[in-house]
């Protein structure tokens, strides 16, 4: 049991949990700034980003994929702003125009180009492949202290851990200005804080988390984790510090419970195959939000 668990289940569990928490962190600020759907838009436009990166470089190496996705996310944010300002169109509609168009362009490019040799398709982009991120060199719990085995950890795990650290450190370092600009933009401005730059910074952090998480777990988890854990946490407390702690707890809970239920639930119920872990994680986060909406202490005020 031990060796099988460490090799097959521990890496996906950790990746899922870290991805969920990395998305939930900036999600808190997006939610409070009423930009929750930016996360939705970003995760849709990741697809054209990686397709273009593939067409340019011809490989599905990680770095070009990440760069392409990040460029697409920034392009989407710029396009939304441009449409909103130039056309004087409300933000929601500008967002709808942008992400559907970029997503359609991504699908079209994917169909037109020869990707049969590489693993790149719409389904993969939507729900990732969490279950396949296994640690082949692990023989048991002892491998956790074995440098040779540790070197063969799935690269996605290292990457998502690094991104989670970057996002957490950035938020901790700019805690006061972030908090001020989120709750009272006018006051923050009068203190001389660069509120526009802070807003862009939050969106950039969100894009970073989305791109890294997308790589490992697909875009459904990204959208769900941007919104559901922070929304549930928002109903638990009125203090930002506690809200963030709750959202991290909810995100980790969704990821762990979702992965375990998706992997073992059908087997317990007597079926042979397992179901999509990404989908199940999103489902669990929704159930947690539903519970919060019905029973959380601050669900109204």
């Amino acid at each position: 049991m031990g060796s099988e668990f460490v090799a097959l289940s521990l890496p996906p569990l950790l990746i899922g949990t870290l991805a969920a928490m990395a998305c939930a962190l900036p999600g808190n600020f997006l939610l409070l700034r009423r930009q929750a759907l930016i996360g939705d838009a970003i995760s849709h436009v990741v697809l054209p980003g990686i397709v273009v990166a593939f067409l340019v470089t011809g490989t599905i190496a990680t770095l070009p994929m990440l760069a392409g996705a990040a460029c697409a996310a920034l392009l989407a944010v710029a396009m939304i702003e441009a449409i909103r300002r130039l056309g004087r169109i409300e933000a929601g509609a500008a967002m709808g125009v942008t992400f559907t168009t970029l997503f359609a362009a991504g699908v079209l490019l994917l169909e037109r180009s020869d990707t049969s040799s590489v693993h790149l398709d719409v389904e993969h982009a939507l729900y990732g492949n969490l279950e396949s991120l296994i640690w082949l060199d692990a023989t048991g719990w002892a491998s956790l202290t074995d440098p040779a085995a540790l070197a063969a950890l799935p690269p996605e795990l290292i990457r998502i851990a690094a991104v989670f650290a970057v996002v957490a450190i950035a938020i901790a370092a700019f805690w006061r200005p972030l908090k001020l600009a989120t709750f009272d933009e006018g006051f923050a401005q009068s203190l001389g804080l660069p509120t526009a730059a802070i807003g862009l910074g939050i969106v950039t952090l969100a894009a970073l988390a989305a791109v890294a998480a997308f790589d490992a777990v697909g875009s459904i988890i990204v959208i769900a984790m941007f919104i559901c854990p922070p929304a549930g946490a928002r109903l638990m407390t009125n203090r930002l510090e506690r809200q963030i702690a709750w959202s991290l707890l909810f995100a980790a809970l969704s990821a762990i419970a979702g992965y375990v239920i998706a992997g073992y639930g059908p087997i317990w119920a007597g079926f042979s195959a397992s179901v999509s872990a990404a989908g199940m994680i999103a489902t669990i986060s929704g159930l947690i939000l539903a519970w919060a909406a019905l029973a959380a202490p601050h669900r109204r005020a």
Partner: protein
Amino acid sequence: MLLDALTLQLGYNAVLVTLGATALGVAAGTVGAFLYLRKRALVSDAISHATLPGLALAFLVAVALGGDGRALPLLMAGSALSAWAGLWCVGKLTRATRLSEDAAIGAVLSVFFGFGIVLLTVIQSLSAGRQAGLESFLLGATAGMLRADALVIAVGGALVLLAALALRRPFLMTAFDEGYARVQGIDTARLDLVLMTLVMAVTVVGLKIVGLILIVALLIIPAVAARFWSNHAPRVVLLSGLAGGLSGYLGAALSATAPDLPTGPIIVLIAFGLFALSLLAAPGRGVLAAALRHRRLQHRVHLRQGLLALAHGQPVYEALTRRMLRGAGLMRADGVPTDKGRAEAARVLLDESRWQALRRAEGLASLAARDDGLTRIDTILTPDQLADLDARMSLQEVR
């Protein structure tokens, strides 16, 4: 080839798809316009993603009962039910908690979609190897469209269109002034529900052609594009329906000309093309029109300031102003005004001093608020008033 497709001569399946896509586009554009004017465009995103679990459940139920899980009307019924559940959740989350509507939309769309994916993997493992083909509803698949499917889509689209047009007055009234609509006896909450039901119907009808991820585009983009061309709400609705229909027709025809041009994305990109054209070229709200207006205003300001400087005998240094004065033959290259320039400068100076006098004139001073530095005073005052003003001015000079 494209011409053949546009004139519906590219084979039976292509004709079915083209007609179906056109009907869908008109219905989506029309309903989308009401949705956009109600400022709730993104609710459609939640509705469309929420169709997935119902689609999968309908398939599972049909298979469990021993039927064919792929019958379109059955799948449409299932997806309508789950879209309705998603809509109910958005409403409940927004009303019962302090979460804003966009958070509720995001939560519902991701959770329902995630649950749908779980069900899809269940179907995959049940049918072990045999493809159920439900994935095609994510992005639409028109290759195997049947005559019955096209009929269902066309009739569904027509019904949605009729319902939307029949309710256009209450829809518009609610969109523009909710309070007034309520006073007029309209149950706005119920009317919003009807609008959302129509959006849901469009989504369900569009599953086969553009798929549930991209149907949002057909609901939002034509309406946003149409809004550029008119400030008159019924005309915006009409234009939006036209833009939607045109996108569906052109997109389906174009995608029939080559095997690897998927219908849904092509339709969306054509709609975006119409939007981009509107953003740039629409008179009034378009970017080009605004830029031209700005340029014209800039020129008028420069010309007037230049003439005032000439009238005061001051030199003009600013490059654009110099260019304009010389171009109009008002100033020579060495900065000396021509005769025409002198006359024009005197006229502008008179205008300016009349405005200043107007500010001091009893009974007329309120009119001075119309002074924007560009309007000629003789377009504001009547000849009598002007004469009166001139009399006051000469009186002041005498004193």
